[in-house]
């Protein structure tokens, strides 16, 4: 079965990004597909590559990047939500005249249409938020 996943809250502050991660992993372990994860609202903050959690805590962004790499998950960060909150890829940073970007490997920035498309193409859509 194809599972689409929405992550609506930022890392560490809410457990949503962790629960979504464990759910995605379990779905893949059971032979299901997770073609896409869509990061919306504060969920876009999961995609920063500047996070440095304490050494004895999990690294939420890295966990996602590795899971996506190993399983070919399309991790999409909503562009409108990301711009408000300061998550930019290199192109966007250049276009906006910012001298830094912070989008982590494995994530891409795109529009909300990707969320609707996920809902259409997946058998199930599950939202993790607050």
């Amino acid at each position, binding site marked *: 079965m194809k599972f689409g996943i929405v992550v609506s809250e930022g890392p560490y502050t809410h457990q949503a990004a962790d629960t979504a991660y464990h759910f995605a992993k379990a779905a893949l372990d059971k032979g299901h597909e997770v073609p896409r994860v869509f990061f*919306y*609202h504060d969920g876009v903050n999961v995609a920063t590559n500047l996070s440095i959690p304490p050494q004895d805590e999990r690294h939420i962004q890295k966990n996602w990047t590795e899971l996506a790499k190993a399983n070919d998950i399309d991790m999409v960060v909503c562009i409108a939500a990301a711009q408000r909150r300061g998550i930019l890829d290199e192109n966007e940073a250049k276009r906006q005249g910012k001298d830094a970007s912070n989008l982590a490997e494995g994530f891409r920035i795109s529009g909300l249409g990707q969320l*609707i498309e996920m809902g*259409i193409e997946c058998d199930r859509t599950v939202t993790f938020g607050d």
Partner: protein
Amino acid sequence: MPEAKKFLYVNRKAPYGTIYALESLEVVLIGAAFEQDVSLAFLDDGVFQLTRDQNTDEIGVKNFSPTFRALGDYEVTKLFVEKESLEERGLAPSDLQEIMYEDEDDDWEEKPSIHIVSRSEMADIMADQDVVLSF
């Protein structure tokens, strides 16, 4: 082309205190281009999103409530509002904005997009969907 899926956008939060209501509306507007069978549910504090006379000048946050009145132009015409949620909050249907659309199947007659439904009807609507997105 496969048949359209039934999408329900569930709105349970008040506007302005958090951004969920606004960012939900942004999804609805973009989603309209995909020609799916779209409904919006307003229950619990979500009913506050549709109230009249919102004026955000003093708090410096954008007033997005007029956008609801434009939903008809995007062919989003099914807005279900829960009666019990209104009542618990001291609201009457007349406290909500008028949101209309022109029905192309009925000689472009103007019709209301807001439907007041009971809690039990809301449960039926929720149980009749393919995709439920919650905000």
